[in-house]
């Protein structure tokens, strides 16, 4: 066992380093926000890239506007679909960019370029159930003002955006009894279940039809235009001129109705965004492109490998750091308290917040802010507390008589630790690692938010498409993996926990 450890460590290092080593020659990457329309538009861009002979990474679904914008600026992605309204109101809020030229000029300062509008305007809309609209005679957003007892539920992004709820509230003087922020895909379900009555929607969202929503007229013209465009790194014009030309050809190719139809095919049919995108590219560009959709088994196999990668690397790193940290925590007063306190603070940070926060820092220090790396770092950080704490408790609970016997024998501190204390603490240390591993299998689903793959991917897509089948495609294997991990560790106990201690328990 002792001989194998350095190899394992080396293996871990290589695995962590491999995404960095694989950077050249760099294929191009298209990013998407985690909703159908953005994913479909991104898939179209990916296919257009491939059609121009460029090596393309699979489309990466990422959390929100800020994550994508940062990833684009840092070069982790090269293209992503965006909306002019978002650029004005969110990316350059307060700079009052009046027209396309102003936006282009401002983007150029960041090394980013923009195509002409693709055609459709996907603005925000406020919707209520049609039955409720008829009952209360709601036609415009202003009509909501006289019904203060309604519960509002908005997507998290809408809750925060400058052009979202914060300013909508002022424009219309709305003051609802209760307002909740939630994952946008869940808002429709909450609406159907009558948990909320008012929600935000995108005007090309097929859910408006599926959930039978009445869109309330924006009678005070609050929402700006959201013309869809592609943002891309300006350097592509030199390095990949054909690809950029293709992207520019997209202008005017998608009307409101066409986009809605594409969205509907994905969300209400059972085609993936990639398949619908390929169909569109074939028809609109008369280029023969195809996508490998892969069977269920091969998809699960791939997500399983991705998921295992996230869990295993982060767990090994956490063991390598956590157990020694636990020893320090058990043996020292002040440093021990600092270590434990820091690990506890990390534990209280919500997963998404941690990812975003790390993303901001990683970009500054030139580390990947999306993909597997930040997820592994986040899982690693979350794993530390249970491992450190169990190692500490395990060491502290060794009977004083045994610790003194080891000391009185004349063993030095490192021999005491290696020969006596760590073996005696092994059952608790292993229990900590087991807990961590099982929790990590669940937490690794965060990977779906920043394009790290794994079971989080089908879960997020399923959530967005309102597809239970897709959600289960991630959730069921995740449950099995958690179970398998637990069983594996129970078997491992035989090898890690000294036989004498197992006899003691019997």
């Amino acid at each position, binding site marked *: 066992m002792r001989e194998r450890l350095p190899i394992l460590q080396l293996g871990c290092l290589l695995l962590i380093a491999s995404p960095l080593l694989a950077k050249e020659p760099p294929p191009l990457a298209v990013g998407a926000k985690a909703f159908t329309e953005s994913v479909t538009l991104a898939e179209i861009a990916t296919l257009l890239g491939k059609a121009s002979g460029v090596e393309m990474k699979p489309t990466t679904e990422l959390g929100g506007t800020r994550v994508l914008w940062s990833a684009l600026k840092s070069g982790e992605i090269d293209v992503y679909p965006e909306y002019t309204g978002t650029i004005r109101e969110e990316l350059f809020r307060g700079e009052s960019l009046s027209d396309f030229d102003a936006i282009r000029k401002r983007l150029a300062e960041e090394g980013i370029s923009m195509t002409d509008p693709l055609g459709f305007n996907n603005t925000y809309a406020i919707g209520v159930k049609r039955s409720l609209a008829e009952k209360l005679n709601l036609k415009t957003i202003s009509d909501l003002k006289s019904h203060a007892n309604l519960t509002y539920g908005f997507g998290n992004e809408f809750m925060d955006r400058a052009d979202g709820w914060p300013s909508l509230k002022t424009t219309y003087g709305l003051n609802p009894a209760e307002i909740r922020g939630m994952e946008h895909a869940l808002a429709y379900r909450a609406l159907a279940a009558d948990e909320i009555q008012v929600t935000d929607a995108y005007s090309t969202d097929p859910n408006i039809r599926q959930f039978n929503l009445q869109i309330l007229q924006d009678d005070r013209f609050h929402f700006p235009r959201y013309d869809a465009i592609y943002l891309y790194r300006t350097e592509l014009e030199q390095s990949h001129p054909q690809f950029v030309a293709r992207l520019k050809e997209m202008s005017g190719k998608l009307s409101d109705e066409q986009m809605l139809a594409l969205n509907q095919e994905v969300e209400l049919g059972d085609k993936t965004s990639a398949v619908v995108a390929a169909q569109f590219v074939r028809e609109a560009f008369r280029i023969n492109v195809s996508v490998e959709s892969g069977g269920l088994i091969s998809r699960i196999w791939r997500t399983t490998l991705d998921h295992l990668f996230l869990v295993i690397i982060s767990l090994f790193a956490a063991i390598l750091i956590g157990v020694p940290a636990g020893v320090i925590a058990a043996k020292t007063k002040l440093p021990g308290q600092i270590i434990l306190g820091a690990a506890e603070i990390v534990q209280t940070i919500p997963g998404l917040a941690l990812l975003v926060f790390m993303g901001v820092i990683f970009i500054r220090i030139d580390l990947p802010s999306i993909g597997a790396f930040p997820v592994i770092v986040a899982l690693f950080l979350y794993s530390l507390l249970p491992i450190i704490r169990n190692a500490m408790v395990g060491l502290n609970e060794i009977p004083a*008589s*045994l610790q*003194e*016997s*080891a*000391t*009185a*024998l*004349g*063993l*030095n501190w490192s*021999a005491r630790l290696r*020969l*006596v204390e760590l*073996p*005696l603490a*092994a059952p608790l240390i292993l229990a900590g690692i087991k807990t961590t591993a099982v929790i990590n299998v669940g937490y690794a689903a965060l990977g779906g938010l920043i394009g790290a793959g794994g079971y989080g991917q089908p879960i997020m897509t399923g959530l967005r498409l309102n597809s239970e089948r897709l959600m289960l495609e991630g959730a069921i294997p995740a449950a099995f993996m958690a179970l398998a991990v637990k069983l594996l560790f129970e078997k491992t106990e035989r090898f890690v926990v*000294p*036989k*004498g*201690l197992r*006899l*003691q328990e019997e």
Partner: protein
Amino acid sequence: MLKLTGVTKSFGDKLVLHPTTIEFEQGKTSVLIGTSGCGKSTLLRLMIGLIAPNTGEVEFDNTPLSKDNLEQVRHRIGYMIQDGGLFPHLTVRRNVTLLASHLGWEREKVETRLHELLELVHLEADLLEKYPTQISGGQRQRVALMRALFLDPDVLLLDEPMGALDPIIRSNLQAELREIFRSLGKTVILVTHDIGEAAFLGDVIHVLQAGRILQTGTFTELVHQPQDPFVVEFINAQRSPVEDLQRRES
């Protein structure tokens, strides 16, 4: 061999050892006896550096104990406690040979020593592969003694080694220990609260009370020339059922 000069020890506000000066004769068995809390175990723990004195000095082989020589000194002292202090995760063999193999002894030398000691403490070799939980209390103490003796130390410190044993097993082990101590000629310091054991094993007995040594002498001296009423009381507190019976019958 072992000398304590003006040593005191307190835990918090409580002074558990008043200034004490004591020297242990080489090759003799000295017994520290007294009621619980009298400071006898504290004295023993000071000698092997498990605790440090507040004042005064502990000397081993004419050298004061310090952080730098503590491990070396411990290799020359065998230490054994009430329940044996055997490591539950290691076999009897590993418990006994742990320090020697850590210090890099050759396998052959370890095996030779192991079998010498098995013979000395009257244990069978098939015990070596068992774990401490799989053997009896008496066997555990013999194993602990093997461990304490493995490096052939100059001094043996025993802290109530037979406190947890049945009377017959204890009596047998006491007899064997006396033989072993005599044959090895080691400096032995034994802590006990059993005056019978002290009389049987001890060449010199130190009676302690409330952190002070009241009297030092042979058992005969303690009985015939007690220097403190407590010494008389302590000796008389030991019940002898046979004597009691004879007294009642006469």
